[in-house]
């Protein structure tokens, strides 16, 4: 978690230093959800989430270097520079991104679950969306089909209580997101700031969806940063609210205190870990900065898996690009 925290804070600095462009959505505050989840899942299970995806990518085994390199549009990045902040993938670990369109990842996630069921491979799919996304109609459509077909799908609402500048109660008549399956699907709520609770919830959920069909897991969590880099994050909520959560519910502090209270780690050990992580992150930043931009020819790769020798048009009529066959 500390690694994810440092990574996001460094991304913030890099953005402000104009090393990163476009949209960039940070995850600090919410780390326990990804860490707890990954403690309960296998990489043979599938995960898909929204644009706020840096931590999910690392949770699936991606490196911090790959995150920074992607943010800087480098070829060493998670998506070799073509995706950017919102679109990181780790196909070999069944991580399907990194989705920019609010709500769209939810049916996609149900489809991942359908594939696991179809093959009978024992895998489950986790499809993660925000409290703002939770009103999207395609989510209800997905609930219904997932329930009709008993898909092994865990629908995870990461409720950080705001969708951009809109508080949950202004977006949802019923902001108890774990009940939004109505008669269609059961749900449960979990303290998303408590990594151990999250792990437990996912362990239960995985078992449940394999045996009984889909389930909603609502994670009560909080984002410290603004929605994205252009949002100071303090016009629609009070600074007191933010600092209160930091003081009382921070997921990293909670673990630190648990370790200390139970005598599981000396403060010096933790400090050493922190130092090590800082070193790793700083090294990753340097490596990312040193990494190459994609070659210009990459503009024309990956349009299709089978480009069939197609002729594409460049910017000018004089530029016709023949793709490989």
């Amino acid at each position: 978690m500390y690694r994810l925290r440092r990574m996001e804070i460094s991304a913030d600095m890099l953005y402000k230093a104009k090393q990163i462009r476009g949209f960039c959505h940070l995850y600090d505050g919410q780390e326990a959800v990804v860490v707890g989840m990954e403690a309960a899942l296998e990489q043979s299970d599938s995960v898909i989430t929204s644009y706020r995806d840096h931590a999910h990518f690392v949770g699936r085994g991606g490196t911090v270097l790959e995150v920074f390199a992607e943010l800087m549009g480098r070829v060493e990045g998670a998506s070799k520079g073509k995706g950017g902040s919102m679109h990181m993938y780790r196909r070999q670990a069944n991580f399907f991104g990194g989705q920019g369109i609010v709500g769209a990842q939810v049916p996609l996630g149900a489809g991942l679950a359908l594939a696991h069921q179809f093959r009978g491979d024992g895998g489950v799919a986790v499809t993660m969306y925000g409290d703002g996304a939770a009103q999207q109609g395609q989510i209800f459509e997905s609930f219904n089909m997932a329930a009709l077909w008993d898909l092994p799908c865990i629908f995870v609402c990461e409720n950080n209580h705001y969708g951009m500048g809109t508080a949950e109660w202004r977006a949802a008549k019923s902001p108890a997101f774990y009940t939004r399956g109505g008669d269609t699907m059961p749900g449960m709520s979990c303290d998303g700031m408590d990594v151990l609770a999250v792990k437990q919830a996912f362990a239960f959920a995985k078992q449940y969806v394999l045996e009984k069909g889909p389930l909603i897991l609502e994670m009560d969590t909080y984002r410290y940063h603004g929605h994205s880099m252009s949002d100071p994050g303090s016009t629609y909520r009070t600074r007191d609210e933010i600092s209160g959560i930091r003081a009382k519910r921070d997921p990293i502090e909670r673990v630190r205190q648990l370790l200390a209270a139970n005598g599981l780690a000396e403060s010096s050990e933790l400090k050493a870990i922190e130092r090590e992580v800082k070193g790793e992150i700083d090294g990753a930043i340097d490596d990312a900065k040193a990494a190459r931009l994609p070659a210009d020819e990459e503009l024309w790769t990956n349009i299709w898996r089978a480009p069939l020798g197609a002729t594409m048009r460049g910017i000018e009529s004089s530029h016709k690009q023949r793709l490989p066959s």
Partner: protein
Amino acid sequence: TQMTIRDALNSAMDEEMARDETVFIMGEEVAEYQGAYKITRGLLQKYGPKRVKDTPITEAGFTGIGVGAAFQGLRPIVEFMTFNFSMQAIDQIVNSAAKHHYMSSGAVTCPIVFRGANGAAAGVAAQHSQCFAAWYSSVPGLKVLAPYDSEDARGLLKAAIRDPDPVVFLENEILYGEPFPVDEAVLDKDFVVPIGKAKIMRSGSDITLVGFGKMVGYNLKAAELLEQEGISAEVLNLRSLKPIDRDAIAASVRKTHRVLSVEEGWPQSGVGSEIISIAIEECFDDLDAPPERVTGAEVPMPYAQNLEAAALPTVEHVVAAVKRMMGK
């Protein structure tokens, strides 16, 4: 032998399902009802409910589910009862299916077919008559196919199902029951029509008639009539709208020096406008007449029979345009 488009599509799916067990079909009424237009007849009985899935009327959701299943390695065939309803799901087709291979620099693939009836049917008015050929074929990352006859329907659909990329497959309701002659070769289990290649249906020397789907039939009819008037028309069946076969269009126009595009969709930024542009870009100096387009009239489709007829191209329009272009 003769084969209807319905049987061509049905047999293509049947054989590909037999060949590859990751292929499955989903959509409204595709299973127990055997398809609103009976294209999936018998498949539930043969392959069971795991591989022939009735969905609720939730296009956005089931399209997204199909795309997710394709990401994870299955090969879904998603049937839209008609493509008009694909507008509810177009975000999933474009933003999810078409763009992921690129955004992930090749990590994520999406082998899926979206198929169903496209364009005008008969007497179904404005909301059920739209042609989506131009929209989908504008999107890099999609492949867009439109069969004309049973050979196309069989060979292109089999190619689409085997293709590793998302394919939009535009059928025509009015042609479903139409029988076309097919060769022995077409009946082969491994008969596929190459994606991205147009086909010369009839060779000619005075003008090239470019079309896709049902309009290829009109163009063939027009070519016959024109022959009686001493005009030799070449008929090009695009088959693929994305990628579009620029080379074949250019080669034909270089030969005939004239080109007319025929489609049922709306004119503005339609397929015809692209055909004209390709002709201009590739062979301006070869042209003996300005390239032209015959299109649907620029109106929402009216219901009344006389108005509907007045909104759609006919063989006569093609003949008249050609004669004008030939200065006759």
